[in-house]
Structure formats: C-alpha cells, structure tokens
C-alpha cells in the first residue's frame, strides 16, 4: 500500500505574535516552529497502519515551506515514515488553502497513493480546507475529523467527531483521503535509534512553482490581536501577592455557594 501523509510546520501557539510589515500574517522572526499538532495524529495513524500491514507498505511524508520545515519532516521520518518530499516554497505563509492544495494534488496526481492522511486543520490558519480540497482535486473520496480509523480489504471505516459528543461512522473505498482530529491515537515520541535511522532516509526536494502556479483566491489583511472585550482584569506579580488578591475575589464570588 502507498500512503501519503501531509504535514505542516507551525509556530508554537504560546508565542507572542506580531504582524509582518504588510499585516497580512505574522512576522516569522523570533518564532519557534514545530509540527502542526493535528498532523502528529496523521503521522501516527499512517505508521500504525503500516505496522498493521507489515512489510508491504510505504509511507511518504510531504511538507511545503522553506528549509525550516525539514525539521518537521525529520521528526515524521523518525516516527516511522519511509521517505520524504520537501516542496520548497519560501513564501509558504502567504499561500492560501487553495494554492497549497493545488501544489499537493499536483505532486500526488498519478502516483497511485491508496491513502492520504492530513490533519483536520492547521493550528495557525485553521481553515480545515486543504485535505478536502486535495481529495476533490484528485477526484477521490474523503472524510474529515477522524477520532477512529480502521482499514481492511481496501475499505476505510472512519469514526467522525460530530457535535455534542456524538460520532458518525462512515465507510469509504480506497483510494481515499482522511483528515485527523486530536485524540485519534496517542502520537509516539521518536526514539534515539529511530532518529539515527531516519538520517539515512531520502528527502527529495521539489520546487512549488514547478508543481502549480494557481493564483490566490483570497486576500489577507489587518493581522492583529483581538480587540479586548468585557472588563477583564489582568493580575501580575509575585505568587504571594496574587494569592492575596485572588482570595479576596473568591470570598466575594463564592459567598453563599459553599
């Protein structure tokens, strides 16, 4: 079985974000990047499937971006992907979902992947579009927000997370694409021997512009912090000072409740 996993590298969400010069997106300097959390579940699920299938399968991991994304690629290789494709795109943060999906679809077309795994969304853009767009461009079935995945005899049985704790079960024939939700599995940490082994794995480099030159369908502006709503108070100081202040607040708010 041929498996493709698409991953994105995103900033640590606890970072302090500042707009770039044109305020279309964040300024990348001083940010630490890591693998998009949803994609960690996608990589793990692909590796679990490979383990289920034994030796007859191969996982390709793909990431689009500048050289920094190689770090995320190496992590995926250390977790168990077999080979990698780095699609070089220095301007990745200004590429929107339609363009990203067009690049991935152009790469995947004709390569006969049986299954494509992606995260359900990225933590930074959060569009939840790319996976489904790739499937539509390739003309293969897809389903989203997986919290359960099983494969047998060319059929995927997927459990989708719906609202209010309800789940929906669907079946689709491969080739297919699935997008992974948090909690689908327990992503493993790469071990040192596997990190060493991963160094020998192939990372092919392609140019994004040679795969697709679709124009953007949207424009972005005014990247900013949210306008503060309500009358929230921010307390800072030493732990002792903070405790004293909060005790007073809690006494007032919990009067009659206890």
């Amino acid at each position: 079985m041929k498996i493709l996993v698409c991953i994105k590298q995103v900033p640590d969400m606890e970072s302090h974000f500042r707009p770039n010069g044109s305020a279309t997106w964040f300024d990348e300097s001083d940010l630490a990047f890591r693998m998009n959390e949803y994609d960690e579940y996608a990589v793990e699920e692909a590796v679990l499937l490979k383990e289920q299938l034994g030796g007859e399968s191969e996982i390709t991991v793909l990431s689009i971006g500048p050289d920094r994304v190689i770090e995320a690629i190496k992590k995926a290789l250390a977790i168990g992907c077999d080979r990698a494709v780095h699609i070089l795109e220095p301007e990745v943060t200004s590429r929107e979902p339609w363009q990203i999906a067009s690049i991935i679809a152009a790469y995947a077309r004709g390569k006969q992947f049986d299954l494509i795994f992606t995260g359900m969304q990225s933590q930074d853009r959060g569009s939840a579009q790319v996976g489904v767009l790739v499937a539509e461009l390739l003309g293969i079935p897809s389903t989203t927000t997986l919290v359960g995945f099983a494969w047998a005899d060319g059929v995927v049985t997927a459990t989708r997370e719906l609202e209010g704790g309800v789940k929906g079960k669907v079946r689709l024939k491969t080739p297919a694409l699935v997008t992974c939700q948090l909690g689908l599995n327990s992503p493993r940490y790469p071990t040192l021997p596997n990190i060493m082994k991963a160094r020998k794995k192939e990372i092919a480099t392609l140019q994004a512009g040679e795969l697709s030159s679709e124009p953007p369908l949207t424009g972005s502006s005014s990247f900013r912090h949210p306008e503060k709503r309500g009358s929230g108070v921010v307390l800072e100081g030493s732990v002792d000072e903070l405790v004293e202040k909060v005790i007073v607040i809690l006494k007032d708010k919990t009067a009659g409740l206890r």
Partner: protein
Amino acid sequence: MKLLLVGEYREGKLLDTTAELLGFAAAIGGDASIFLVGSAEDVPAFSGTLYLADASLYGEYNPEVHKQLLLKAVEEGNPDLIVFIHSSYGWDLAPRIAASLRVAQLSEVIGIAGNAYEVGCCNAKMRRNVTPSTSKAVITIQAGAFPALQEGGAPVVKVLSTDVASTTEFVGYEPPEARDVNLAKAGIVVSAGRGIGKKENIEVIRSLARALGGELGASRPVVDAGWLDHGHQVGSTGQTVAPKLYVACGISGSIQHLAGMKKSGFILAINKDKDAPIGEVADVLVVADVLQFVPALTAKLS
C-alpha cells in the same frame, strides 16, 4: 447580495444553528435562500426560497450526494455567497463546493468588516480580515458568532433531486459516552488544561476544586491525553457549563472550550501566557505558573 444558507438536519430534526445563518444574513443585509436536505414537515420559518431535498430519500449526511444537491441549488439560485455553519457538516461540505465552483472559501468567520470578513487564527489568539477575490464565495461562520434570528413566515419550497452514486457509505451514529460527572449542575467548576504539564498534576487542580467545593472539569487536550475521562470535558464536544464561578487552570481557551464555558457567572483564569485567548472571556486573568499559583491558593483556602 444573494445568499444561499446551508441549513443542517440530523436524525429527523432541523438543527437550531439554521437560525444563526439567518442572523448572519440579516447582519450582512442579504437576500437569503436556504438549502436543506431535510423534511417538508420541519422547515425553517422564513420568507424566501427553500431548496429542499428529502432526507428520507437521501439519508443522513453523505458528502457526494449533498454536494450534487447543493450544486443544483447554486445553479438555480445563482447566489453570491454560500454560507455554512463551521460544523462537522459545514467544514466537510464547504471545500467540496468551493472546489467544484473554483471559488474562494473563507473559514470560521466571526464578523463582517466592510467587504472583508473577520476570522480568527493562531488557535484563536489572533484575528485577521480575509477578502474573497472571486465573484462568488463560500464561507463558514463560527457557531455562536452571529445571533440566532427567528424570522417567521413560510418559505417557497423548490424540491431538489439527484441520482448520483456515492462511494461513501454512512453506517450510523454513536451516542455520547455516559457521564459520571454532572458539570452542568455544579455551582463551581475548576478545570485543568494542558498547562498543568502532566497527568500527576491533575491532583493539584482536584485539590483546588475540593477546597472551593466545586467539580473538576478539563479542556480537550487533557482528555485526549488520557489524564481525565471524557465525562470531565468542558466545551462544544464535551459539556456546556454555566456555573457561578469557573476557574480555568492552564487553559489557553480554544474556541471549542470557550463555547462551553463563556456563559459562566464569573471566570477566573490562571495562565502564564498573558495573550492566551481565555483572557477574552475571563473576568480576572492571573498571569502565573499554574503549578506555583494553584497550590499556594489551595493552601490559603484550606
């Protein structure tokens, strides 16, 4: 502007979120039609065109079938904007429509800013404006971002049909897991988030909950990591709570979590990140390391 609102219907019932789509249409000032795979017995009350496909023929959500039906409504009504709720239905179906029409999609819109749309990004920590550059566009709106509008009236129904074959088969629903904790009735809820770092530290938060006489809640990452079971989860995929006092310990405040607790009477948040989105709903945000502050607070309370 002509809007086509995509209503939701599940297991024989029109979902309430359909009224939020009408609220969005009123906010933007558009002429609204609704698309629904539902039942003629339970139609949204509004005065406009309802493109209706019979759910008893087409079953529960099937992406290929719903895509074909919705494309027929688009062809007939020629809308400028096709509007979904950003839900498991909307985020699954919307990109299929955008790809078929080759038009822009904007996800999880929370506001209207002139001819741009306001959206969240970076885990709801930041905002930006997005403008479609195609003449038609597909958007999904965040659940709860636009007030529900009970418009009233009776729509003009146009029946849609398709004979498309589908490669996806809907098997069935699984009900929510049984809960041993009833957070919805608690007067005080103290919740643990990812910021507590590891499973053992749940006890730190449990001690504070006990000292305050409240129930123990959790954000999604804590439940996903197996630190607490799903019965403790607060948020749109867990329980919705509105206690007199909500204490969020090390919770950054994803949209899904905020949707489940923002109606609490008083919200105290403890987070080392001053910019964490939980600060948007908190009455008091204590900027501190949760593992230093919470034990000190518990000791003082006991």
